[in-house]
């Protein structure tokens, strides 16, 4: 059996066993549901059009009718708009009683006063603004009624807002989208490093606890086992991430929460590339940490320093998100443990030159290559020593 066959054998076991495990399937479905829910929920709860019933005492029915007309006019052809209906009351008392009962949203008294209920979200809402706007429009319409300019005034009042443009030619929608990709990517990267790192950690410790590793090590080299595990878990992790991304996009499209213009391809591609580098960098170390302990209960402790490094890298990158050109972002690009977070952010929302990106990739890849050797040796040394928690250096020295 050559190295390629050996690594493939370990990787395919990892893929098959972990891929069909209940834990993997459930965690995938759960995260998809959570993500889909987070995207779709705001639209489902608050997004739909409503009908507002407005009480009117004396004059004011015209204002409500105007608000309704404006709302319908502003809505696109295929969209339903908010509706405003008037309900006439004899006196203020009966109208306010209805308001207290919640039968109506607000009361217009004599076309002069707008009364909202003591509780409720009417004040400051879109509906309030629409009614206030309609009141103004209605007054202007009354003023010009009968004059020659009447039709023109009405048209001006209903005209479109100014078109907005930013200097430099970048499209604001794409800017927003890039920001979103960077932010979502950052969170996904952090989740991926922690959760797939912990798969490595527990997978390695499990084999040691069950002594399966003795059978493995009697036929395979340590780096075959470590490499096969990395590839198997890496593929499963990448697969889960892709499912998540696709689910997220579908959620956005189906719920119509916001529109997706052409995705900025370069930042998505870079995110996937950096996902792989970030995963490898951390997962190798998590694997080595797993070899240091004999019991599952101790595994998280052994990995605690790594988890802290991952967290610090993650926090680093929020500074980069706020200021992609700042010193923290630039330095973070060249530190291998923060580069997988920071570099894709700078690509998505900042200005990172091709050579900066190349240097960042080179530093991270070089670190991975060195780590494969160092961590591989710790792994080989740690696996066959039992007892409490073995120190990194001790494991490193005991490997031969």
């Amino acid at each position, binding site marked *: 059996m050559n190295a390629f066959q050996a690594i493939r054998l370990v990787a395919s076991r990892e893929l098959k*066993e972990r891929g069909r495990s209940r834990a993997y399937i459930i965690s995938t479905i759960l995260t998809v549901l959570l993500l889909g829910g987070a995207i779709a929920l705001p639209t489902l709860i608050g997004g739909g059009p409503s009908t507002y019933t407005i009480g009117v005492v004396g004059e004011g029915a015209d204002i409500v009718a105007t608000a309704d007309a404006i709302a319908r006019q502003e809505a696109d052809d295929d969209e339903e708009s908010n509706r405003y209906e008037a309900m006439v009351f004899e006196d203020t008392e009966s109208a306010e009683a209805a308001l207290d009962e919640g039968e109506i949203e607000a009361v217009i008294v004599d076309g002069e006063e707008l009364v909202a209920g003591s509780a409720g979200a009417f004040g400051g809402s879109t509906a309030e603004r629409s009614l206030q706007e309609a009141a103004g429009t209605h007054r202007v319409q009354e003023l010009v009624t009968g004059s020659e300019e009447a039709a023109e005034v009405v048209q001006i009042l209903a005209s479109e807002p100014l078109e907005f443009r930013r200097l430099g030619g970048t499209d604001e929608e794409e800017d927003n989208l890039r920001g979103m990709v960077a932010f979502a990517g950052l969170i996904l990267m952090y989740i991926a490093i922690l959760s797939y790192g912990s798969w490595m950690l527990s997978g390695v410790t499990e084999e040691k606890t069950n002594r399966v590793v*003795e059978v493995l090590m*009697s036929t395979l080299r340590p780096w075959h086992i470590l490499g096969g595990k990395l590839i198997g878990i890496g593929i499963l992790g990448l697969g889960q991430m892709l499912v998540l991304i696709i689910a997220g996009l579908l959620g956005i499209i189906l719920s119509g929460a916001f529109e997706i213009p052409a995705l900025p391809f370069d930042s998505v591609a870079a995110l996937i590339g950096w996902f792989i580098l970030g995963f490898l960098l951390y997962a190798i170390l998590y694997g080595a940490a797993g070899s240091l302990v004999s019991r599952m209960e101790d595994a998280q402790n052994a990995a605690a320093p790594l988890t802290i490094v991952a967290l610090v890298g993650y926090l680093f990158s929020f500074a980069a998100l706020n200021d992609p050109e700042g010193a923290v972002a630039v330095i973070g690009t060249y530190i291998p443990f923060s580069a997988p977070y920071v570099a894709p952010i700078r690509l998505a929302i900042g200005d990172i030159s091709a050579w900066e990106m190349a240097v960042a990739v080179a530093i991270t890849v070089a670190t991975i290559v060195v780590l494969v050797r160092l961590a591989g040796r710790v792994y080989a040394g740690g696996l066959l020593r039992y007892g409490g928690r073995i120190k990194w250096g001790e494991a490193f020295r005991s490997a031969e």
Partner: protein
Amino acid sequence: MLEITDLHKRYDDVVALDGCTFEVQPGRMLGFLGPNGAGKTTAMRSIFGLVQPDRGEIRWKGEPVTHEMRMRFGYIPEQRGLYPKMKAHDQLTYMGRLHGMEKKAAAAAADTWLELLGLADRRDTPTEALSHGNQQRVQLAAALVHDPDLMVLDEPLSGLDPLGVDTMAEVLQAQADAGKAVMFSSHQLDLVEDLCDDVAIINRGRIVAAGNVNQLKNAASIRHLELEIEGPVESVLASLEGVRSADVVDGRHVLIVEAATDVRKLLAEAERGGIVHHFVYTTPSLTDLFREAVA
């Protein structure tokens, strides 16, 4: 033949192996005995390269053991050695493939072994859901699935019920009969005495007795004597010569005496003391040999 010669291994200030030397012959079964911490597991692990000895040599068929040779060895580590969540058949197939078998051949061999050990209906059961005895059967199959030339089993009998022991014994005997070299460690000395052709007893990292069980018994410097007398036993015992140790088991006196002692003289002494109901003089049991060797 597996030859282990002068193995030394030291962990910091603990000496695990201190010149360990013994052989495992093809077609024979060797029981590897020793008190806890004597170096059994370390010695077995060094056969598989899991421990690098500081000094010494391990040869298979006259050549230093290589990675390729190890693919033709079978190993059961101390405790389990299986993936708890993996189905029995998948597990065995994987073990076969680890030892270089093709996928199809490994799957077929896995089925054969499950059938042979009466686990055909447990084919797709995760190991953790099997009874303890069945887990050990799967473990045995895992070490055999690639039809190894040498089998090394670390405490394969611990925790097995008598039926499980029978199965294990049958399978191992069949392997030895087929010309394979088999060695296993155990603390169940009476079982080892029944099963094994050879033993090697290790104490503090050194082999203190090794060879054919019967020859060892005959060559031993001690004999086993059981005695039941009606009369003043204590004075009889005090008058016997060459007694190394004395014990009472179920009302019967069990003595370890010098092999050089004349048995007729012993019997005469006993008869002078009272009516002899029971007098058995034999070569020592393996337990006697073990106690003597590690004392």
